[in-house]
């Protein structure tokens, strides 16, 4: 149980900067998820914390201790790998006991801890088997078990669900959340799947190209993304973006882009006034585009004309892919709506939840 601090951490591989000035303060007992596209440096950051990579610059602290020059085994961490990395010629029991044996833990203590971990994970009946005799889900649990028995200060997970099938992934996701509540330990979890991040994290750190984009609670990231990347990365289907210009006419501000002509609500005029005449990107999430018939009452709705391209029925909702001039966007509408291919329709945008980004800096304007 300990906090973890990345203090101006850099990791360079030759000319490539994998981790660029990373600053994160992770609280004790927190469940932090590092999320980002493949190759963004999130795994490298985790490996640096584990001590498997040396950092090029900066400091990493576990608790109050700077661990830059501490060997992985002395950092009091445990890691679950994507491929699980079970020792193939050892039984499940020996796999879990290996770390404790090397630390010369008394036999009875090892036995207790392994049995206890096996109980938590429901793998008690598998202890005598070899990894190759296990299914993917079972192997994954053994890998988690091997981490649990060590009773470390910090748990590290490197995409532990990537090799599981979709159904098992959802189940295991819930199990890992439950485990976090049970163990009351710091969890640091790396994934490229924003759904995993949203569902499990107490806080999410979004990383792109080695740079930390934003770190906050899942809801805040979703509602108030700091920049274009975070806005596009968090949420599925992704936020719709419309390249546009901020124009002023008749004392009102408009977002203009081809067929798009949207009035900025009066109450936010002052925020956007300095951007008059500048290039911006207008963003709106699919669920904030409604069929006018079923739009919730009391929202600041702005009508937009569009042509239906594709519809995807989900049962509880419909994804409608629409076109309007050079723009194409997705709406997530009420399942009672009926749309047909090539039909000209009117949608409404909920302006209360709109996002506007500076096209030059890609930063959110608010």
């Amino acid at each position, binding site marked *: 149980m300990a906090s973890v601090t990345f203090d101006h951490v850099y990791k360079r591989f030759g000319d490539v900067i994998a981790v660029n000035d990373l600053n994160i303060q992770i609280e004790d007992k927190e469940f932090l998820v590092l999320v980002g596209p493949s190759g963004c440096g999130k795994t490298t950051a985790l*490996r640096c914390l584990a001590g498997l990579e040396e950092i090029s610059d900066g400091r990493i602290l576990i608790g109050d201790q700077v661990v830059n020059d501490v060997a*992985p*085994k002395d950092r009091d961490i445990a*890691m679950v*790998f994507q491929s699980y*990395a079970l*020792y193939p*010629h050892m039984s499940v029991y020996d796999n879990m006991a*290996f770390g404790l044996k090397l630390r010369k833990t008394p036999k009875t203590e090892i036995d207790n801890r392994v049995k206890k971990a096996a109980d938590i994970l429901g793998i008690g009946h598998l202890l005598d088997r070899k990894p190759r005799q296990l299914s993917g889900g079972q192997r994954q649990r053994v890998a988690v078990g091997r981490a649990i028995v060590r009773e470390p200060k910090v748990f590290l997970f490197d995409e532990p669900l990537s090799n599981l099938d979709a159904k098992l992934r959802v189940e295991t996701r819930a199990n890992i959340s439950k485990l976090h509540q049970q163990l009351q330990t710091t969890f640091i979890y790396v994934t490229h799947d924003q759904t995993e991040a949203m569902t499990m994290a107490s806080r999410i750190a979004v990383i792109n190209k080695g740079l930390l984009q934003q770190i906050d609670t899942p809801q805040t990231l979703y509602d108030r993304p700091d920049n274009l990347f975070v806005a596009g990365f968090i949420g599925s289907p992704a936020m719709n973006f419309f390249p546009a210009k901020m124009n002023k006419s008749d004392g009102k501000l408009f977002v203009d882009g081809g067929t798009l002509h949207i009035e900025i609500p009066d109450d936010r005029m002052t925020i956007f006034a300095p951007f008059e005449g500048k290039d911006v990107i207008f963003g709106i999430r699919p669920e904030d585009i409604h069929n006018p018939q079923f739009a919730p009452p009391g929202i600041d709705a702005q009508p937009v004309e569009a042509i239906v391209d594709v519809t995807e029925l989900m049962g509880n909702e419909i994804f409608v892919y629409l076109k309007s001039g050079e723009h194409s966007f997705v709406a997530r509408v009420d399942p009672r709506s009926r749309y047909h291919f090539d039909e000209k329709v009117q949608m409404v945008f909920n302006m209360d939840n709109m996002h506007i980004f500076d096209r030059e800096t890609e930063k959110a304007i608010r």
Partner: protein
Amino acid sequence: MAQVAAQHKPIEAHWWYRTRQALRAFAPHIVLFGYMLIALFPIYMIIMNSFKERNAIFGAPFQLPNAETFSLIGYETVLQRADFITYFINSIVVTAASLILTLLVGSMAAYALAEYGFKGNTLLALYLSIGIMIPIRLGTVGILQMMVNLSLVNTLTGLILVYIAQALPLTVFILTQFMRQVPVELKDAARIDGASEYRIYWLIVPLIRPALGAIGIFTMIPIWNDLWFPLILAPSTKTATVTLGVQQFLGQFVSDWNAVLSSLTLAMVPVLIFYFVFSRQMIRSITAGAIK
């Protein structure tokens, strides 16, 4: 019913198709069988003739021993010379020691080359593999001088050292490739679990067992059969190996063929035992990776 029969007809009409398929599957086995005959024939001749009288060996070399020609005189000669037991022990000691040390040292070097990205790694790997291209026998004169200086002439140690040097380049080269195939995450997991580098090396060794088996065979057979270095470095009666020992039955004027064939037959036995032990591993290593 009529319909069913009609459906079957075209298949029956192509009975020759199946025959051709069977022939096609059989053809490689004919070739392999032929090769096996060629390879095994000399061995068969040696073993068979070692149980025959001297006259029968030359008179009717292809005939199996019968009541008249059967004789164990060759084996008696070989076993009566007490030295021969020593030769056997020498051969086994030299081969086993060279083999074990080659595999141990070679796999450690391979682990280091595969695992650590130190400066000059590639250069060192290249340096170590020069020996694959240059036969060690070219350096015989130098080796002999060195052995004389180190007072290792006529010792088994001298032989063992030379054989390790002879086998190491290919061993390191092949094992490095195999070590690289061991997933990085496995080593990382062990590192986090608190294993020392030696412990991690030891953890990985079972995973490359097939490669070790293959190299075991490739290394062992030339050492066991070698005549060159025992003749030059350790020709004394105390240190001679079986292959060298056999030579004393071959003279410029008289050759004791019974003894030669018997001793060669005896010399085959340990090789065969070794081979059977290692070959299962080797076959696994040859097919490993071919089919996932």
